């Protein structure tokens, strides 16, 4: 769960973009980086890539303040999707407060989506994360490509998982913000009561998301 640093008056969240290889996790981060006001985010730190595959992780830190002066920090990570880097993926995922599962909408990627999702659930179990109660979103990316599964089929296919769905084409920025918003809203709901976000710090759900983006 979110860490509160008394000395810095800072509440810090770890949000992880998970999903199969080449589904667009890093692209989501790059697009998000462009959408967030420059003074509230750091630079994307990409640790080694090989042929567009992330080898370690990408990191985009976002920082903003509540009217009360409370600092809020969101650390956005991507995992390496390649199944040969499974251990690294698990280590990056551990201690996450929220997860975006970036799936590839193309029909021929259905199996790799399913396998990757299964692996995510598995890792969450092993690292002691309670997925049921966590902030989470499935993003169906690459809607711009031909031969993608219909939204209706997607809903049917993923209904059982109980994860909220969003649709995106991250390469041109479509849906990236919606996904991020869907996740951050859940994060807000989880900490609102515990840290008196609205009553003590003057941050509503709407203003929280807006503040995160710097708009």
């Amino acid at each position: 769960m979110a860490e509160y640093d008394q000395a810095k008056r800072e509440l810090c969240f770890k949000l992880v973009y998970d999903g199969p290889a080449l589904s667009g996790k890093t692209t989501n981060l790059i697009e998000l980086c462009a959408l967030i006001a420059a003074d509230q985010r750091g630079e994307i730190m990409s640790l080694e890539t090989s042929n567009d595959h992330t080898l370690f992780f990408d990191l985009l830190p976002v920082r903003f303040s509540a009217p009360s002066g409370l600092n809020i920090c969101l650390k956005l990570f991507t995992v390496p999707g390649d199944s040969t880097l499974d251990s690294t993926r698990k280590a990056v995922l551990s201690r996450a407060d929220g997860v975006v599962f970036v799936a590839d909408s193309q029909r021929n990627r259905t199996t790799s989506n399913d396998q990757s999702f299964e692996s995510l659930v598995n890792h969450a179990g092993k690292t002691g994360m309670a997925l049921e109660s966590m902030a989470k979103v499935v993003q169906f990316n690459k809607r711009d490509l031909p031969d993608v599964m219909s939204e209706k089929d997607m809903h049917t296919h993923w209904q059982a998982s109980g994860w909220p769905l969003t649709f995106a084409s991250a390469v041109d920025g479509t849906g990236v913000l919606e996904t991020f918003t869907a996740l951050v809203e859940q994060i807000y709901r989880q900490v609102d009561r515990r840290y008196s976000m609205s009553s003590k710090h003057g941050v509503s759900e709407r203003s929280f998301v807006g503040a995160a983006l710097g708009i």
Partner: protein
Amino acid sequence: MLKQFDRDLSLTDLLAVSEARLLVAVLAELLGAPLRILDLDDRTIAGVADGADDMAALITVPLTLQLNTVGFLQSPGPLPQVLAAAKLIDQVLRAGARYCMSADLHLETVRSDHQRLQDEHRALLASETRLRELSDGLDQRVNEQVRTIENSQRSLYQAEKLASVGQLAAGVAHEINNPLGFIRSNLNTARGYTKTLVALGALVKSDRGQAWVFWQAQDLTEVLVDFDELLAENIDGAERVSKIVSDLMVFASVDNDDTELLDLNENLRVVCNIAQGQAPADARIVVDLALLPLFECHANRINQVFLNLLLNALHAVQPGGEVQITSKFVGNEILIAFKDNGCGIPADNLSRIFDPFFTTRPVGAGTGLGLTVSRDIVRSYGGLLDVQSEPGVGTTAIIRLALPKA
């Protein structure tokens, strides 16, 4: 304690002291002014110490990593150069962060992989142990099954044998009993007739006629005496046949497969009568039976045991040899022994005599099941069958049957 790769990094995480000193020295040259790097608690990490004279008019610039202030750069100036120096240090810190995070992540991954390997290793060991236990158990279970099959095979054989003997005995007894009845009856009647003939002899003698001459010439008086003796012997023989037939029926106990309370001495006598015919010439069966309590068992089965042991003994003895059958009651046990002074059993064979199908007789002469079945039967009554032997001296088979505790 493992450092988490995603923690907030401090200045000392990012910049080793020796690196910081080198960096400060180089920057001082470029700047043409002294400078120092401070951490968040205002401690000097590298550069000119606090209170130095030429640090009078200080410019302080924060050093940042990804929006986080991690320390400060202090220098008397000039400002643009100091700002540029801070940017340069920020770049160094970024590189440090990249290194630090990937190293810690790598370590975290390696540790968890190692942990997983150890867990898998433990699981493998556990499953190997379980497999070994299973395989050991399997061996044992196969052996048990083999024993069960052997036992049921023997029981089956024994049951078959008993049944066929029983049927044969019943058939023979029925067929023999009828003619034997009228033979005995006729013989007795014929013996009555000889008395009439003797009376006729007396009449012929007193007449002194031609008949008497013939009578004397044929020595009919002696003939009649001899005839009477012949008939008496025949009657005796017929009675023995009749006894054997009835013993055979008792032996086979065709009509009874339930346990009953038996005086085992009676069974020993019956078996002796049946086996008598198979004894070598002049071999004797000596019977020494003490009073026994009644014992509950199947007559046909215990007879089978006695017959097997007695026939074995008779097989072993030479003409003129001797088989002793003794019974006694000691403590709570009935002891029955068949002792012969025959050829004995070599030590090599003695350990195998109870093995199923072990026989030293020619093919077809023995099944090798006699002792095996006998011991099974004795054991089924909670008893023991033991064989002691010395080659050239003889063999003794002892049955011990404990009476059930009241």
